[in-house]
Structure formats: C-alpha cells, structure tokens
C-alpha cells in the first residue's frame, strides 16, 4: 500500500473518531449517547493544552499526561500529528486538495511555496504561552525575596559560569558580559523589591482561541453539530454560535486560496511541534543529487517546507506527498540528512520574538485594567457549578465547549464579552435559552472538563450532603425577585411558579400571604342573606370572583380573617360555608374584595442559583426572578452572608 493511502486512512479514522466523541457527548440513554467514551482524548493528546496549563497552573491535570505520547513521538518523528492525527488538519488538507484540483502544476507549486508569513504562528505561540506564564514569571521575579538562598547560590553559579565562559572566549566579549550580568541581576532585584509584581504579572490561558483541537471541538460542539442536528430533537441553541461557526468556516474556506493556510500561518500547536521537531531522528529529505528539478514534489507539499531545496524541518508536516510523487525516488523519510541541506529551526527573528514576548506579558494586565476579575466583576457571568474562582478559571479554560455540549438542559453557553476579552467563549449559564435550570442531580460538566477549570465534583459536594454538610451546597449564584415585574408583587395576580419549581428542600423561595384589595374593590353593602351579601353598586362580572383566589372582608373589622368567595353575581358575593360571617354585614357598611396573594421571597442561605425559577417564570421576556452571581461558592468575596452557611 502507498504511504499516502495509509496516511489518508489514519486521517479519516481520527477525524471520524473526533466526530464520534463530540456526538456522544450528550446525556441520555440512547446507544449513541455518553457511555464512558474517552471524549476528551484529543484534547488530552494536545501538548499545547498540557504546556499552557502547566505554565499557568504549574500542574498537569489528570488525562493531560497523554500529551507526553504526542510530545515524545514528535521529538522522534517530527510533526506527524499534523498530517496523521489532527482532525482540523485533515479538514484543511481535504479542502485544500479539492481547491487545487484542476489547477496547473505551476500554480500548485506556487501556492505551496514557502512564505515569510509562516513565521507568524511562532509569534502567536510565543504570545499565547507568555500570557499563560505570568504566574511563573512572577515566581521567578520573586525569587530573591521568596527563596534568597536559592537565588544567591544560583546567581553565584551564573556569575562564575559567565566569567569562565567570557574568559575562555576572545578578548572582545569579556567586558560586555562582565557589565551585562551585574546589570541584569540589578534589574532582577529591583523588579523583585520595587515592582508590585503580583499586579503586573498575571496568567491567562488563551491558547484555546487558536489551538486547533479546542477550536475544532468548539466549532463542532457549538456550531456544526447543533446546525446539522437542528432537525433532531431536542434542538440545541448556543448564544453567539454564529461567530464560532464563522471563524471555523473562514479557516476552512481560506484553504481554497492557500492550502493548509491555518496550519502554515496560524496554528500555534503546529508551531510548538515545529520547535519540538528540531531534533527529530527521522526526517524527510533528498536521498541523492540526481534531481531533475521537475518540482512534482512541491505540487502537493502540505507544509510548504521546500523539500526540493533546503527542507524546513519545522514546517514539514510529514504528509509524505513528496516521497510519493517523486518520479526518481529521490525523496525519503530517513535518519540521514537531506543531500540538499536542511533548516532545523524556525525562520524567526529575535526582534519579532521579543515583541511577541513583550506583548504576551503586557496583554493580560492590560485587559485586566477593566477590573472584571476584581471589583468590577460582572454578576451576569454565572459559571457552571464547580468552576474555580475567576483568576484560576481563566488559567485553565481552553474554550473547547465540552461542558456546553454535555449539559442536559443546554444552559451552558459560550460567553461573548460577559467575562471581558479573555473570557470569550468560556462557559456562562443562560437560563432563558435552555430547557430548565441547572439540574440538581447532575455533575456532567465537571466530569468532562479536560483541564479542571470546572473541578471534578461529586453529587454529595454539589448538594452539600454527608462530609460537605458543613460547607453547604455548591452555589452558582442567587435568585433575586424583581418586585416591579413579579405578578403577585406588581400586578395583584397570584402566581408563585418560582416557588413551586424551587428544587431544594426546604425551598429557597418562600412566600408571605398578602390580601390585596382589588381596584374598585370597596363595595357598599345593600343587604345580607348569609352567606351571601348584596352590594349597592352592581358592577361585578358574574362568577369572576369564584376562582378560589378572591376573599372578602368587612372594612373596619380588625383582626377578622378574610372569607373565601365561592360565587358572585353582578351585585352579590357568596362566601364559603367553611368561613361564615361572624357579624352579618349591615346595610350601609362596606366590604372589601381582596385577592389572596402569595408573594415570593428568596432565602440566600438556601438558594443555589440553579436558575429553574428564572427559567419557569411566566414573565417570559425579562424574567421577574433572575439569578445573578452573587453568593457564588467559587468566590467567597461575592458572598452575601456574613458567614457562608
């Protein structure tokens, strides 16, 4: 079998596998729904997810250990992942292939030539990793203060080593090094003691924006599958999915212009692997010098890595097309160097690198100037249960959309600007779109989160049972009654759908009874024939007061309970035989027709912010009871109560 056929089978297999994993990330009992499939496997294989979270959190979460396999193989083999595994790469490959069909050979060669723009991806990688590494840099800057012994020993070793190095070299360099080293150490110590480093060096993981695996999973989960599956019940909605879908389609269609555009110019994962491929044992290269210059090898070169000339190892995606297409068998994948030479390191400049590094360091503190992670926090940013505090959450979330797809009620949505720029496409709860609120007995999102931005939490922890009784349930926010919109509060209409649906026991929503005298509800008595009272001004709608919610009381009869009306004509009301009149209303006295209201109140000690009340509220536009993030467990500073009981 030809090597490219094997590659195509591998690509097809992994693409279908990813599709399958996305598809089965659905709660339910059908055979195609979640059954312990390792649905996060691709994200776990992704070394950029692993490296990014490692830089920002200094840990490697659960399944992310899988990335070692990819890293190891890439170091040995080169960027095999791009052409053999990566599902996004496969899509680009296919579309690029279709786009270049029928084009003359020369045009295809031209579209696969190396472009200087391909270095952009390394700058993007540097930018993203630097933005994630703020906390690491903080540790480094703080070393003189936090670990003085280590610092002194390290500094001494460095100075001595530097001096030895300088002396061993030509006469021109020593002075430069002897000046530079103390200056650097001086700057370091100055930074440590005079810079408010913890405010300036901040971590935020933004690799997920461009990392191809989270990108393709997000697009499948939130835009493509709901779009294709719109006919399937029940339909899924995601706020702002159009943008996710547009980014995806743009990345796919640009292949018609330049094949593998995304892989060559943008992909930070490809850039990372390009760096790792530097020491690859096996490499693509020319095996002899008899090349006739026919350029067939470059007609389908996926990486635009110039295999005919000095091959760029960091750009080569191991598509094997050159090996397959060379008529003279001059291309091979071997341990021997290419006879036409090779470039192992990426074509990047020191200046560009420094610039992207500096932007990465500056970007997050700059974004945080809006204060959204601090005092200007957005109460509309309600995170799924088990989410970490906002700064820690932003160090982990890769915006893959798995929590949004698995959520059985479709309430987890990709954030727009609710969480600021760095919160784009991170999960936020929306109780209007979904099919209910956060289900009491569900822990799915925490189980699927590949990076622990949403912690793995148990049902006992969520409900505050057993060993969690002391700390209480996980709260995502608190419901607030909008008394200006609530029917019993503002419009004299009974309702309490919110109270009925409150799922906790005892209910967080409780009611207080209030008898409200109706508009034009004071009537003058004309006569009485218990239990019926006849009134003078007969403007009542017959039967209207018989619903069971209307009561009547004698005006001025302090302390007497209102009596339930069981029937009325246009000029009489009859009260229930179960609550007869104590004093017969006399002619000339007044009675008040009242509606019995149960007005809802929220007990913040019991409310978990599940949002079922908001979802069910019959005021269906802007709801009369709404959850906001106050009192969320993940951030004690947002607590409403003096003690988080």
């Amino acid at each position, binding site marked *: 079998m030809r090597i490219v056929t094997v590659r195509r089978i591998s690509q097809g297999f992994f693409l279908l596998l990813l599709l399958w994993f996305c598809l089965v990330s659905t*709660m339910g009992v059908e055979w195609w729904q979640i059954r312990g499939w390792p649905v996060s496997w691709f994200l776990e294989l992704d070394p950029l997810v692993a490296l990014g979270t490692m830089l920002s959190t200094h840990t490697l979460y659960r399944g992310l250990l899988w990335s070692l396999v990819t890293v190891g193989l890439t170091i040995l083999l080169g960027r095999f992942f791009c052409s053999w595994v990566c599902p996004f790469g496969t899509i680009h490959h296919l579309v690029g292939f279709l786009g270049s069909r029928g084009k003359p050979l020369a045009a295809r060669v031209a579209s696969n030539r190396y472009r200087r723009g391909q270095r952009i991806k390394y700058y993007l990688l540097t930018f993203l990793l630097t933005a994630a590494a703020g906390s690491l840099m903080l540790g480094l800057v703080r070393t003189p203060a936090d670990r003085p012994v280590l610092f002194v020993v390290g500094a001494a070793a460095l100075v001595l080593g530097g001096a030895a190095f300088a002396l061993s070299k030509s006469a021109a360099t020593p002075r430069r090094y002897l000046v530079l080293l103390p200056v650097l150490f001086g700057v370091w110590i100055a930074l440590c003691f005079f810079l408010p480093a913890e405010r300036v060096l901040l971590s935020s993981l933004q690799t997920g924006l461009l990392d191809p695996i989270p990108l393709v999973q997000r697009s499948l989960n939130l835009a493509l599958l709901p779009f294709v599956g719109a006919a399937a*019940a029940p339909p899924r909605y995601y706020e702002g999915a159009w943008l996710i879908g547009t980014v995806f389609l743009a990345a796919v269609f640009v292949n018609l212009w330049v094949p593998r555009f995304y892989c060559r110019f943008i992909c930070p994962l490809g850039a990372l692997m390009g760096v790792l491929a530097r020491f690859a044992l096996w490499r693509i290269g020319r095996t002899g010098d008899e090349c006739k210059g026919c350029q067939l090898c470059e007609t389908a070169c996926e990486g635009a890595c110039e295999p005919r000339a000095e091959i760029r190892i960091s750009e080569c995606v191991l598509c094997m097309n050159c090996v397959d297409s060379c008529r003279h068998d001059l291309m091979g994948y071997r341990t021997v160097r290419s006879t036409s030479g090779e470039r192992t390191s990426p074509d990047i400049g020191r200046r560009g690198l420094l610039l992207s590094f500096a932007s990465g360091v500056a970007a997050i503190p700059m974004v945080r100037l809006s204060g959204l992670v601090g005092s200007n926090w957005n109460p509309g940013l309600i995170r799924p249960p088990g989410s970490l505090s906002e700064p820690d959450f932003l160090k982990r979330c890769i915006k893959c959309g798995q929590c949004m797809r698995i959520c*059985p009620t479709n309430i987890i949505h990709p954030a727009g600007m609710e969480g600021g720029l760095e919160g784009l496409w991170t999960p936020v709860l929306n109780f209007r779109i979904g099919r209910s609120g956060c*289900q009491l007995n569900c822990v799915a999102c925490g189980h699927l989160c590949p990076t622990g931005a949403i912690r793995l939490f148990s049902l006992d922890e969520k409900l505050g049972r057993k060993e969690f009784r002391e700390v209480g349930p996980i709260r995502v926010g608190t419901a607030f009654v909008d008394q200006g919109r609530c029917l019993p509060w503002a419009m004299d209409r009974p309702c309490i759908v919110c*109270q*009925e649906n409150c799922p906790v026991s005892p209910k967080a929503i409780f009611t207080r009874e209030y008898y409200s005298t109706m508009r034009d509800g004071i009537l003058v008595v004309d006569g009485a024939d218990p239990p019926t009272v006849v009134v003078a001004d007969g403007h009542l709608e017959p039967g209207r007061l018989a619903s*069971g919610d209307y009561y009547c009381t004698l005006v001025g009869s302090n302390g007497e309970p209102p009596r339930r009306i069981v029937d009325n004509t246009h000029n009489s009301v009859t009260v229930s035989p179960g609550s007869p009149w104590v004093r017969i209303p006399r002619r000339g006295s007044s009675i008040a027709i009242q509606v019995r209201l149960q007005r809802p109140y929220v007990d913040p000690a019991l409310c978990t912010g599940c949002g*079922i009340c908001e979802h069910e509220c019959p005021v269906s536009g802007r709801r009369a009871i709404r959850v906001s993030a106050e009192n969320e467990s993940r951030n004690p500073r947002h607590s409403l109560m003096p003690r988080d009981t």
Partner: protein
Amino acid sequence: MNRRDFLRRAVKAGISIAAAGSLSLWLHDRVGPGRGEAKGDLVRVPDFSLPELGRRIAIVTGTNRRETVGRAIEALGGMDVFIKKGDRVLLKVNAAFASPPVLSATTNPELLAEVAGLCFKAGAASVVVSDNPINDPVSCFTLSGIDEAARSAGAKVMLPAEGAFRTTTVPGTTLLRGWPILWEPLQGITKLIGLAPVKNHHRSGASMAMKNWYGLLGGRRNIFHQDINTIIKDLALMVRPTLVILDGTTTMMTNGPTGGSLADLKQTNTMIVSTDQVAADACGATLLGITPADLPFIIRAAAAGMGTADFESLRPVRLSVG
C-alpha cells in the same frame, strides 16, 4: 446588429419580463399579513371514560404498591373490565421533575410497571407512557426510574418532541382555548389511565390526579398559575380518563410539588383507584390532612359535573393488604 440577433434578443427580453411579471402577479398579496392566529385544525382529547361502569372507587391500604394497586383494581371488577383485548393504552405519569423515585415527586416506577403489566395481561395491544415534564425530559424520565420501568414492562416511552403538540379548545372552559397540548402520545389511544402521587402544592393546595393532566399541556403553561383552580377544573373537563390511580403510599406533606428531602414525606400507605377523578382527589386530600372543601378546584370540578367531591357517597371498597 443584424435582424436575427435583434429578434433573438427581443425574444429573450420578452421571456424575462414575462417570467418576472407572472411570478410577481402569482405571489401578489393585496391584503398583507393578518393578526397571526393559530393555524391548523383543532384537536380534541377523546372521552376515554366508561360511563356504563358508573363511578367506582377503591381505597386499599398497604405498603406494597404492586399488591395494593392490584387489589384495588380487582375490587373495581378487575383490569379486564377497563381494558379490552386490542386496546391501546396511554399511561399518563407524573414525571415532572428530575428526581429519584425515593423522593416521591414523580410516579413510582414499580407502580407503573405493575399497571402496565396488568394492562398487557388484560389484552392491551400497546401501552404508551408519556408526560411533558417541567425539568429536562430525558433527565426526568431517566432519574425518576420511569423510563426503565416502562421499558422493562414492555411499554413504549414517548418524550415530548417539538412536533408532538397540537392545538385544542375545550368547550366550557375559559382558559383552554387555542392552547397546544401533547398530542402525539394520544394518537390512536383507546384507553387512558392517569398515575399520580399525592403531593403538597403551595399554590393550589395539592397536586393529585386532576393536576396531573397539566403534563399534557404545552406552551408557556405557567401563566395558568394565575388562576390555578380554574385551570385544574378545565383540565378535568379536557381529560376524561378510563381510570385514575392516585398513589398515597408515600405522601409529600411539605415543600411540594418538588420535595427534595425524605423529611418532606410521610408514609400514608393508601392506594386510591377510581373512575371518578374528582372523588379520587377528594379522598387524596384527606391524606394531606385537609378536606376537599379546602381545595376550590375540587369543589369547582364537581360543580362542573366532572365527579363528586363526596367520595364516601360512592361507597368506596376499602381493603387492607399485608
């Protein structure tokens, strides 16, 4: 341009103008859009009751639902009286909440399995189990154990799909006019049995057999809570079941209708089976420690001729099991 070219062009232009003109005339709408009233034919829930059997009620005490419901149905003449060979039966459960069976917020799965089994034994051709829950349907049917119980008994579970609703208007009601109801499970059904637990309900006082038909409503049905007693009465007018089974083995005394804690429940060990849904609810009220007169919807449904609130007048068969 020669003559031939001119003619050719003139013909093409003529066809284009004619096409544009005829399309515009064909689609021309002189009136404009109307007020947007509901389209499509109205459906009516058929009458599933068996008037020739009269009003019967059996009240059986015991802890084992399979035994108590079996004895109660037996006491009313046996399932054969209600279900004939070839009948297609709909079991309307209460699956409103994604809550485990032990919390009694939903129809007990064991009770459901037993009733479905009795239907099949009596010769039913098919048994459908359905509800339009409040929480996420899949979670509700799964967590409540209803899905598994129904399947293991050979019944078919129908979840409310988007296209499963049709519009109904119930004569004699004020609220149910042009309102969507869950129609798909009702199609082709010849007998209807309601299975509901006895639960406290802060707004209406109680959620029992009649309130259980709320789960047949679609749309933003929550607006009916403004007039809860009227809607429950209207539901009784809309649905005339073959039989209702009101499960008071465990009664939710507080925090209803969701419950959520064992502390909300009380063992009342009573199974009520009746052809009269008003009488069943009136009897169920006593388990909650209230009287039928405390529940306006019972009084109003009785006044509307849907049954009797004085269930003792039906001379209930009272039995005890175990």
